[in-house]
């Protein structure tokens, strides 16, 4: 194996984008080093390996950080869309629950039915609040949004258990949306607008 091939193997320690930009020039410099030094000596290779070991990990970390920051930006966009969707669905939820209340009020209403509808309205309002907070960037942190989502989920479950008035779609939104948003909010992320509380 030639010295240059050995060096090309060592270059794999660097991030691909760094290799793509500077790899060729680094090989040219390595050729200069080979011309000026004794390629067969151990000292030469110790210097070469030390150079790679000293510089490659830092550049790898930099590349990972950059990628993580780009991913965070993508997550933020997804969260904004999720916030919009949540607000919209929760708005429909509030309207639906109020409609249910109006329709139910025409006949005799049992206590559990009234409580279930009130809980449904409150769950939708909390979900709406969480959606708006996510959309606005949640300057006060993630914790209030998490609490609102937990409360919304608990109320939706309680409403469903008290009286089976919710449609399958309402149940999917009432249970699925808070769970999905809670998973997203508990997902570890760096330097996000939705800072960990």
């Amino acid at each position, binding site marked *: 194996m030639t010295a240059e091939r050995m060096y090309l193997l060592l270059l794999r320690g*660097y991030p691909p984008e*760094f290799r793509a930009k*500077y790899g060729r020039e680094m090989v040219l*410099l390595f050729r200069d080093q080979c011309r000026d030094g004794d390629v067969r000596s151990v000292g030469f290779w110790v210097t070469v390996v030390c*150079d*790679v070991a000293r*510089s490659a990990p*830092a550049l790898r970390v930099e590349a990972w950080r950059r990628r993580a920051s780009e991913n965070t930006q993508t997550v933020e966009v997804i969260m904004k869309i999720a916030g919009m969707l949540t607000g919209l669905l929760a708005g429909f939820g509030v309207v639906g629950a109020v409609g249910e209340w109006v329709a139910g009020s025409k006949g005799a209403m049992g206590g559990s039915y009234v409580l279930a509808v009130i809980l449904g309205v409150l769950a939708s309002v909390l979900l709406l609040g969480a959606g708006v907070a996510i959309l606005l960037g949640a300057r006060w942190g993630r914790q209030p949004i998490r609490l609102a989502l937990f409360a919304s989920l608990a109320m939706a479950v309680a409403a469903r258990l008290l009286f089976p008035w919710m449609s399958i779609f309402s149940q999917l939104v009432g249970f699925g949306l808070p769970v999905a948003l809670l998973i997203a909010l508990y997902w570890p992320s760096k330097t996000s607008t939705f800072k960990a509380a």
Partner: protein
Amino acid sequence: MKGVAARSEGSVRLGPGTLYGALKRLLETGLVEESGERADPERGDERRRYYRLTPFGLSVARAEARRLDAMVRAARRKKLIGVRSA
């Protein structure tokens, strides 16, 4: 690389990884920029890229040199350097 080793009297030896890692950061911070011109067209390899200090890089280098100069002067006043040991 040879220039750095010569200027530092052999105390600083840059390898290609250290050199290009530093160059990448200098480019990202706007302290150096790629230059189309070759310092010595006779000797220069056209496959290589050439870099030069930006005006911002020059002012940063001057500021750093002034800072180091002030430190060296302070060390001299304190007789930490420039005094022959007995």
